[in-house]
């Protein structure tokens, strides 16, 4: 417990040093285009009481959440099919292994072309980013479950349904969560990227808008806010992961 | 935990240290190797104070999988002992070959530790510890994690290189049979405070033999004696 307090105090000290360095750099004027942290804090305070920040936040988070949920369903279903059936693995493996290396931002122009400048485009790009970690982790877990418990399922004469509910579902949960953790972070990045590039909504758009209008404190306020949001999303998923019963998790796919 | 503990070892002698778990066997070895500093007082070997790991010392860790460098081949792992001792590059090759032959690990130079069995890994660690020809070899339960047959083979291999290279060996183990089989003398430690309770000379003739030596009356007598001593602690 003492060491916990110590870590928090030291960590906050580190953040304080960082902000101080930022303040000094801004005050010295040696770096043009960097507002003082105090100005950014004021701007953030102003934005926090405004509608703009909250509606942008709600938009970005909602899109991220929807995209992550869709990616989770797609990733789990396809991953389980690929991992549980060697034939399906061979049939779909080549498509998966060529599509997953397309950098998700590359899809932005295509999606804009096909779907236009709306929320649908944001969701599509984010799903394309978030689906791979889930899919690959679930596929690897199901495959290892299939080979590891092959003898057991046969000796216990488990029906296909029982195999699914007693072995694959509980066994694949940790891998799903690991995949979702990476996937949700990617989804957030892509949603913001799409908003910065094309779709005029959400936090990404606000950063771009403030930057183009040269409202520097406001732009930095949004950047800091987005950073904090990233930390919150990450922490929430960490907590969810820890809340899972500590079963002997299977090794997750690393790539 | 250890207070005022002292015992003597003759040059070239093979001494085993046994004792109940938690008696500070490993701590003692780490203090002697300079890996730990005493909270108070000092550690002396031959009258010289130990301040950090001394030269002229080989150390074999219990956990072979973690003590070897997994990114180096077997030969390079042994060579590590020479690099550290500052032996010029051109002299290293033959020395590595020589020590690998002595520990009965021919033809493994190119294997990585991860490709070797536990027994082979531990032979490799012994080779690394001995390649620079230290006069003292400290061994921390080196065979504890190996199966019985591998362990017999490694014990005999160790006695063989010890006989050829004649380092002073301090061997920590919790296995009384192993201690008697290997040692010239067995030192029994107790805990709280850790101290030497007995020193038992082993009068079995050498070279020893896993079958015959262990069947001798002397072996059985020593085993009984050591067991009773430890049980009474």
């Amino acid at each position, binding site marked *: 417990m003492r060491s916990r307090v110590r870590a928090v105090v030291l960590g906050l000290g580190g953040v304080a040093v960082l902000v101080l360095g930022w303040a000094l750099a801004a005050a010295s004027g040696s770096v043009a285009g960097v507002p003082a942290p105090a100005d950014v804090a004021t701007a953030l305070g102003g934005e926090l009481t405004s509608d703009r920040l909250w509606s942008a936040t709600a938009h970005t988070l909602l899109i991220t959440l929807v995209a992550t949920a869709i990616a989770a369903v797609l990733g789990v279903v396809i991953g389980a099919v690929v991992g549980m059936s060697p034939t399906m693995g061979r049939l779909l493996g080549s*498509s998966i292994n060529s599509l997953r290396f397309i950098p998700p931002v590359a899809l932005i122009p295509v999606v804009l072309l096909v779907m236009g400048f709306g929320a649908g485009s944001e969701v599509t790009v984010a799903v394309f980013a978030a689906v791979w970690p889930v899919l690959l982790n679930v596929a690897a877990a199901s495959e290892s479950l299939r080979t590891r418990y092959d003898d057991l399922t046969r000796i216990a004469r488990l029906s296909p349904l029982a195999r699914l509910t007693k072995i694959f579902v509980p066994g694949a949960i940790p891998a799903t969560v690991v995949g979702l953790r990476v996937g949700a972070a990617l989804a957030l990045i892509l949603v913001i990227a799409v908003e910065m590039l094309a779709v005029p909504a959400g936090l990404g758009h606000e950063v771009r808008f403030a*930057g183009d209008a040269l409202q520097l404190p406001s732009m930095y306020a949004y*950047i800091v806010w987005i950073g904090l949001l990233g930390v919150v999303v990450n922490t929430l998923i960490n907590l969810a992961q820890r809340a899972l019963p500590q079963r002997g998790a299977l090794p997750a796919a690393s790539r | 935990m250890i207070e005022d503990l002292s015992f003597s070892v003759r040059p070239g002698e093979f001494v085993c240290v046994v004792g109940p778990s938690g008696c500070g066997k490993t701590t003692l070895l780490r203090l002697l190797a300079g890996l730990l500093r005493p909270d108070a007082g000092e550690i002396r070997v031959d009258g010289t104070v130990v301040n950090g790991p001394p030269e002229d010392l080989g150390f074999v860790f219990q956990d072979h999988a973690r003590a070897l460098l997994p990114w180096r081949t077997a030969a390079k792992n042994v060579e590590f002992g020479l690099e550290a001792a500052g032996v010029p590059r051109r002299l290293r090759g033959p020395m590595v070959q020589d020590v690998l032959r002595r520990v009965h690990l021919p033809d493994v130079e190119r294997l990585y530790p991860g490709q070797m069995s536990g027994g082979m890994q531990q032979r490799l660690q012994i080779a690394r510890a001995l390649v620079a020809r230290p006069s003292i070899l400290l061994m921390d339960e080196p065979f504890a994690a190996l199966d019985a047959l591998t362990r017999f083979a490694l014990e005999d291999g160790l006695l063989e290189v010890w006989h050829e290279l004649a380092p002073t060996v301090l061997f920590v183990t919790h296995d009384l049979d192993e201690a008697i089989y290997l040692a010239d003398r067995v030192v029994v430690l107790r805990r709280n405070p850790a101290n030497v309770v007995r020193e038992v000379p082993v009068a079995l003739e050498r070279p020893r033999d896993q079958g015959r030596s262990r069947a001798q009356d002397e072996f059985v007598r020593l085993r009984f004696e050591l067991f009773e001593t430890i049980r009474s602690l």
Partner: protein
Amino acid sequence: MTRVLRIGQALAVPLALLGLWELAAQAGWVNPVFVPAPSRIAEAGYDMLQDGGLLEATGETTVRALLGLLLAIVVAVPVGMLIGASRIADEVTRPSLEFFRAMPTVTVIPALMILVGIGHTLALVAIMFAAVWPILLGAVHGVRGIERTLVDVARVHRLGPVAATLKVRLPAALPGIVTGVRISLAIALVVALVAEMMTGNGGLGSLVIEARSRYRSADVFGIVVVMGVVGLLLNSGMVWLEKRAGLARIG
């Protein structure tokens, strides 16, 4: 025979999908202005390759991503190892590092546009900024995770600080560092493309935005395919390097 079967199975689904797509475009089930047929995309890609613009842009993006990644490695590995070597340094920097790692780093691009201008350095600085954190944390984790026994091995061999770092700590921390580099490689390509799309300063990102603004759909799809190939090649290169470095043995 099984080999032929395997290759057949691997090709079946992609070929079927491509065939369906072609059919859909030809038959007009989808609007070919927005979703051109694969044959049209291949044709457009071939034309772009012929006039050299596509190859040049591909090279530009690849070099940017790799150079930014390299700079990030050069900075992050030593700093990360220093931080990892001390518990206090780790505790002092941990929240700040986690903040930057968790932050969607593409957001700093607008700020960098003002800080460093819309030149060639922008993409490089943005890539480096985004790629540095996973490697830094990987190095910190790598060093913190070094087995005690290995540290003892370095000590009983009387290695000095430099030798201990080069011969023991760095190789032992390498798996952690490589995990970071692998994450950063993907990030580097994404940030390179976003920066190019936002500034129009060369590379595949600019090319694709330009093609889209002229509604040259086949070109857009063709460039996206090339981006996928670049991603695939960079990843294969990484896997190859890892194999060569024998990292599988350390694992």
